[in-house]
């Protein structure tokens, strides 16, 4: 396949031992089975991509437009539909089922998820500011942002200045995670390290865009 990708759900984290007794922290992902819901083509859509669907649900829980779209390829009702941009999808056919078998142990993947929402967060948590001094007669300065601008020049606060506000709940990509385990029978995938989002959250797993030096060394 031109590009490997699959959709999954975060299950949680644990650790596994290898034969030498080295411990690897891993995130377990329940990935697939996914269905190719649609192939976007240059002629019809202006770009090429593969639309994958994941997680069967009761038909009564899906919208009718979605059911109609899936019915074109006799697919069951699915909760999620996500697109993967690919150059060439000639190897895939609409309606085809994909499982975690597209990946193998040792592959490098990028994992995309929605980070946990932190609500309205201050500047220390949100931007890693140091806060103010704790002693020497300070009051109310512990987690304060400090000065936000100068006086008459420029006479305003610059746009984009890092301040308190909504944090989390945004799309986050973690690149170059190593696949530590693949189990097509149970639709399980484990990647080394942490992955964005809460448990049960949707994850997009795709082949790593950038390959790091560490892979070549291994």
């Amino acid at each position: 396949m031109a590009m490997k990708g699959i959709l999954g759900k975060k299950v949680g984290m644990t650790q596994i031992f290898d034969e030498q007794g080295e411990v690897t922290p891993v995130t377990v992902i329940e990935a697939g089975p996914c269905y190719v819901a649609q192939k976007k083509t240059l002629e019809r859509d202006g770009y090429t991509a593969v639309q994958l669907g994941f997680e069967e649900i009761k038909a009564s829980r899906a919208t009718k437009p979605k059911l109609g779209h899936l019915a074109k390829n006799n697919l069951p009702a699915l909760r999620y539909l996500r697109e993967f941009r690919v150059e060439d999808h000639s190897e895939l056919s609409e309606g085809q089922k994909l499982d975690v078998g597209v990946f193998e142990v040792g592959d490098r993947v990028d994992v995309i998820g929605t980070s946990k929402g932190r609500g309205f967060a201050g500047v220390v948590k949100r931007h890693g500011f140091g806060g103010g001094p704790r002693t020497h007669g300070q009051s109310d300065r512990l987690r304060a942002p400090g000065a936000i601008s100068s006086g008459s020049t420029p006479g305003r606060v610059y746009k984009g200045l890092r301040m308190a506000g909504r944090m989390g709940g945004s799309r986050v990509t973690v690149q170059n995670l190593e696949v530590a385990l693949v189990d097509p029978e149970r639709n399980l995938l484990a990647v080394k390290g942490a992955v964005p989002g809460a448990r049960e959250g949707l994850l997009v797993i795709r082949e790593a865009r950038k390959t790091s030096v560490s892979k070549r060394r291994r």
Partner: protein
Amino acid sequence: MANATDLIRSVENLKEEVPNLAPGDTVKVHVRIVEGNRERVQIVQGVVISIRGSGINKSFTVRRTASHGVGVERTFLLHSPRVERVEVIRNAHVRRAKLYYLRERSGKSARLRERRDQ
């Protein structure tokens, strides 16, 4: 969908059989050590002074007194393949879960009363 805990547990390579350790136990831990490409088994004998964690993360600390009264503590992951076998030699009657007070003691005061159940 299966329960998340079950799914995670199914991935963990837990040992099928682990010794039932308790704080105060005197144990012999058979540790696999790889030196270059040669592998040998080292035995660490001492008192279990702490057990912490659960599941695959469970670990225990063994304290022994080496030469000149210098205490040596080593912590092992119970499910690690490096821990080949743990022999329990002796149980002791102790009244707490962590026996850190043994660090301040030596000689006679560092003894533990043996437990004989049943």
